[in-house]
């Protein structure tokens, strides 16, 4: 048996692929509901937390003279890239309700603080300045961890 001059299995295969692709396209393009928004927000918070904690770790290693300059520059750069990626993720989707919008605002404030402290740590030329930036990163890390814990 043939449909449109093609064998049935071939038609079934083509239709399946089209349906699968359409389903995939729908999944990716539909606006996020509150649950999905929260999931994305948590991923962003976790990425920001990782960057803050890692930044603090690098700073401590620098204070103890355990890493060399090129490594520290790269490691701070990696952490900053993580933060930038996280900020991009939360900036895109529109919050579906007021609670999600409040969560976004809290998160953006923490992302901003983490970015500032990470930049200060990378640019620090003296030990006191680096120590201050590390303390700042620790504090942001703790606040992000608390936010993540509250939402779980």
């Amino acid at each position, binding site marked *: 048996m043939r449909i449109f001059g093609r064998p049935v299995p071939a038609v079934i295969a083509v239709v399946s692929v089209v349906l699968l692709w359409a389903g995939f396209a729908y999944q990716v393009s539909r606006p996020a509901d509150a649950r999905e928004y929260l999931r994305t927000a948590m*991923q962003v918070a*976790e*990425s920001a*937390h*990782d960057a803050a*904690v*890692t930044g603090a*770790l*690098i700073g401590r*290693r620098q204070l103890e*003279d*355990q*890493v*060399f*300059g*090129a*490594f520290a*520059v*790269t*490691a701070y*750069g*990696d*952490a900053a*890239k*993580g933060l930038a990626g996280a900020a991009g993720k939360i900036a895109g989707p529109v919050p579906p309700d007021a609670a999600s919008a409040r969560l976004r605002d809290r998160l953006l404030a923490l992302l901003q603080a983490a970015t500032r402290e990470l930049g200060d740590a990378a640019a620090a030329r003296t030990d006191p300045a680096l120590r201050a930036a590390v303390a700042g990163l620790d504090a942001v890390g703790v606040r992000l*961890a608390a936010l*993540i814990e509250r939402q*779980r």
Partner: protein
Amino acid sequence: MKRVLAVALGILTAIGGFVDIGDIVANAEAGARFGMAHAWVLLVGVIGICAYAEMSGRVAAISGRPVFDLVRERLGPRVALANLAGSLLVTVLTLGAELGGVGLALQLATSVDYLLWVPVVAVVLWVALWRAKFSVLENVFGLTGLTLVVFLVAIFRLGPDTGELWQQATHPAPPAGEDWGTYWFFAVALFASAMTPYEVFFFSSGAVEERWGRKDLLTARVNVFLGFPLGGLLAFALMATSAIVFHPLQTSVDSLSQTAMPVAMALGRLGLAAAILGFFAATFGAAMETGLSAGYTVAQYFGWAWGKLRRPREAARFHTVVMVSILAGVGVLMTTIDPIQLTEYTLVFSAVALPLTYLPILVVANDRDYLGERVNGRLANGVGVVFLVVVVLAAVAAIPLMLVTRMGGG
């Protein structure tokens, strides 16, 4: 004495050569997020690669022909073409990931962006594969890769709570904040990192290039059964150091700089330098192996003259495939995809392609026309079949797990 030295060198090279960018990334990420809860996967992966590497080495030593050549002859061009397509795609993507890994290692040492290093690394790789002696390359990079042993030393220097690590390893389950889907996604990625297809193609083709015969079977087995597990120990150390430093902080690892951090904490600048050297050697050595593997598989499928030991003029098409594969790997990286992300995708696709690589090896290793009385015994077949089931399960689960967990993001 010369033979003992050759065996020792082979083992050391196998240890250093076992770890590549996939092992580095997958083990460090799994250790940070799940502690030692995936240690069993590493063990399973090492047993699997030992079983199949032994088979492919035996096939090459007895028949004098590489596995891929026999797959085409034994299973026909259609099945072999499916095998070729899957393996080649994964191998070229892996080559891209390895080149990116070399670039990242150089960035750690110089702070110059890895993308600026990638073309330089590609040219050096191509020149090395074109001009340098095979055994020299293999030994230099395999032995230099052994500097990754600093991760083992770091475990002891970090003074971990061994009871806690043991608890995590013996009670495999996702910790708080993680789910089973993500746990299994990482399990599949780790398994694929240990059983990367290019390893067996490279191993069997290398055996033919070095003209292994029956008398070399013992050497091959010692290399496989000692070298690979000891290489697995380095991978274990990567997982453990990450588990010790990052897991208690509930922090993920997604960069090579983070992976090296525990060594800096334990051993300072010198240890850090050794770790970066180890990353460089492991990824460059793997880039050589994947580049050659791409050439081996294509040339063996089409029946062209092939081999690193042949002059380029005598195996022009083989060398062209190697060169085009390197360019393709560079092309993938030039899209600016993060090499770590590329590695993660490569591991998933590698898992999907695993049955295409390992089923034909099992079939050929049971063929008396090629192996005579040296076909698989009961033990080899038992282990081979069990692992084939595991490989198929991993292949089926890889893509759904990737989609459901958003690439392990949870």
